[in-house]
């Protein structure tokens, strides 16, 4: 019955276990030996939701267990979950009836399909003899005594699910959260794009002081998903498009080996590096960068344009302005509008010009001084805003949680009150009912068991009768002959009854 497990499966299993499992070696060896002995079981990872609402991604063995019931072999579909704390926590076993079967709750299986057994409840993880293989054997044993499922055609054997290759696991249990354990979900990287885009937006907002979010670390993210990069680069189109040729080349050369979990790191890096100023490789000559933080500059630029002067470019600013026009080297301005005017005005007073320049310089200096402070304040305000938003979200969730709990409590109280009232009514009714004949009440469910009750009662009654006869003989109330005769008769009868009790017990399986 054992079949060697494919090497790929074992490697995948080992990789998965290394993630979050506490005792990797023990879990690995137990699971491998169970898979080997029961080739109808297949491993996969899936999200398991506990009764308290928590969900975790756990290793799950699913498939069928062959069991023998009344000389026929049935394959019962089961699903066994291995918790992260294996082997200190017992695995959970469920019976998962297919569409053609119905679940049969009984001594070991409850209405949800959960399997109960003393082997599970007295599971001792420290003992290496307590392992999955033994659990599967125990399950097969109890299912053979009490089949947990029944179907319309119980003779048909359920096909065990085919053993899936772990490199293409069935996608129906994919966890949408980009958690670290979802490493092997290769084909599903395009989905979580929504989340990375939002931080990228924020990047752009925060880093308005820069021409572009720094994609220079992009070559380090050699595994950035191909789908992500073009989108983020599209955002970068708002920024100088001359950057794009340079940065489009690295992403297209990226290997298509997406790693979803690296995204948060990427975003984090980008958020952390909004500010290394990347000097524009090519000064975009004809661009006028209109940034909203420099309103004081905007009116001045046209003003200086009108004057024929432009302000010197600010230090540390990748903002460019029109380079100052060199009036000496240029040909005299042919300003057609001026020719229609009267004689040119007097050149401005040099003192005035100087004063104006000074004032402009001072104002400029003040602007540059206050800019970082304003920047800082904006940052702080932004942080506070974020924190407030987050707190608000968590408060809202807590509030909803509390509301839910309170609702549940109310419902429970109401149910309890109802039940208590009904119980009290029943008590009153029962006390009014009066005595009941014991013989009528004590009865078994089937004819044979009733017979068993009667026979056992008779056996013991005859025992008592013989004893009393013996006592009578002792006290010489009866003579020896009578005693002997009656004792013989009674003993014969007693034997027949006892023999029948024994026969019934053996036949119905009550005793071995």
């Amino acid at each position: 019955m054992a079949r060697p497990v494919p090497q790929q499966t074992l490697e995948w299993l080992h990789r998965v276990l290394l993630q979050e499992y506490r005792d990797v070696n023990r879990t690995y060896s137990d699971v491998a030996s169970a898979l080997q002995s029961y080739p109808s079981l297949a491993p996969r990872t899936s999200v398991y939701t506990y009764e308290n609402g928590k969900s975790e991604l756990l290793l799950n063995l699913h498939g069928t267990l062959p069991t023998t019931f009344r000389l026929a072999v049935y394959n019962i579909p089961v699903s066994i979950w291995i918790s992260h704390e294996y082997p200190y926590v017992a695995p959970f076993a469920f019976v998962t009836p297919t569409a053609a079967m119905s679940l049969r709750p009984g001594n070991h299986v409850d209405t949800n399909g959960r399997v109960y057994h003393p082997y599970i409840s007295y599971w001792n993880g420290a003992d290496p003899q307590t392992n999955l293989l033994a659990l599967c054997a125990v399950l097969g044993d109890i299912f053979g005594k009490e089949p947990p499922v029944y179907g319309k055609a119980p003779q048909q054997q359920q096909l065990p699910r085919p053993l899936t290759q772990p490199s293409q696991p069935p996608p129906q249990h994919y966890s949408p959260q980009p958690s670290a354990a979802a490493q092997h979900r290769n084909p599903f990287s395009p989905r979580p794009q929504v989340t990375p885009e939002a931080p990228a937006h924020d990047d752009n907002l925060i880093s308005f002081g820069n021409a572009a979010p720094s994609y220079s670390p992009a070559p380090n993210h050699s595994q950035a998903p191909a789908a992500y990069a073009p989108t983020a680069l599209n955002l970068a189109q708002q920024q100088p498009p001359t950057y794009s040729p340079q940065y489009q080349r690295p992403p297209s050369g990226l290997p298509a080996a997406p790693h979803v979990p690296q995204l948060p790191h990427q975003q984090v890096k980008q958020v952390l590096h909004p500010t290394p100023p990347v000097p524009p490789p090519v000064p975009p000559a004809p661009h006028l960068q209109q940034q909203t933080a420099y309103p004081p500059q905007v009116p001045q630029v046209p003003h200086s344009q009108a004057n024929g002067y432009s302000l010197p470019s600010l230090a540390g600013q990748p903002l460019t302005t029109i380079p100052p026009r060199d009036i000496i080297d240029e040909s005299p301005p042919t300003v057609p509008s001026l020719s229609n005017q009267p004689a040119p005005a007097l050149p401005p007073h040099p003192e005035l010009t100087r004063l104006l320049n000074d004032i402009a310089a001072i104002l400029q200096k003040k602007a540059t001084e206050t800019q970082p402070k304003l920047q800082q304040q904006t940052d702080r305000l932004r942080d506070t805003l974020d924190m407030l938003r987050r707190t608000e979200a968590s408060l809202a969730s807590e509030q909803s949680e509390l509301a839910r709990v309170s609702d549940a409590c109310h419902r429970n109280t109401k149910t309890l009150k109802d039940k208590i009232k009904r119980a009290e009514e029943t008590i009153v009714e029962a006390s009014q009912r009066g005595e009941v004949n014991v013989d009528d009440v004590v009865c078994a469910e089937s004819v044979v068991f009733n017979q068993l009750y009667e026979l056992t009662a008779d056996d013991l009654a005859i025992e008592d009768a013989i004893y009393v006869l013996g006592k009578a003989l002792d006290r010489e109330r009866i003579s020896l002959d009578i005693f002997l005769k009656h004792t013989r008769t009674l003993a014969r009868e007693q034997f027949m009854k006892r023999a029948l009790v024994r026969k019934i017990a053996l036949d119905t399986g009550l005793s071995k």
Partner: protein
Amino acid sequence: MNLQQPYAPTAYSSSSFSSTAALRSRIPLDEEARLYRTSAQRDLYESLAEIYAIIVTLDFVEKAYVKDTISQEEYTPICSRLLAQYRTILKNQDVANEFKDLDSFRAQYDIEYASAISRLRVGILATVEHPVSKEPGSTYTSEQSTPAPSRAAASARAAADATGNFITFMDALKLNYKAKDQLHPLLGELMTSLNAVTTKDFDGRAKIIEWLIKLNSMKATDEITDDEARQLLFDIDHAYKAFYTILE
């Protein structure tokens, strides 16, 4: 999660035992069960019932004898009758097969009755095993007024009987009689006749009783080994000589 219950909390838990018992049962539970279906089975069970009845009765008789409820004159015939009936029933081959042996019968049917069992194992009556003299005075004082000549005649006769039985038994051994069903009756008669002569214990008497018990515990077709036969012969011979000595 180690705190979970060992058995499922189903709504049917109150009747789950019988429903699973219904699954496990090899016979249908809807009609009455019967002990036997053929008359051969019926006879078998009735014979076993007879054995059981004998055991029960024997037990009470033993206890009554010990408690002095019945005298030894009442006890002896009843007990020997019961023992004879027991042996007769067991001669039936079918019954013997079903019965196997006393211990397995006891275990199967939950039988206690220790006194009866030990009596059946030993195979001889209490009055034979530990004889009580029927003659008043022979064990206590010899100053009783009983007619001496009739007593003498009776005891001479008994002594001759006993001697004859001794010789018969020893001859049987020398003729290589080894089977239980050959030796046991002879030894039983010897014992009875010895008791008729005297109840005084003589050297070797215990040995005879021991051999009697041993023979009784064997099956009818069992044989004693050569070593045992020699030992038995020696013991009987020794007892004969001792018996002779106490005869005055």
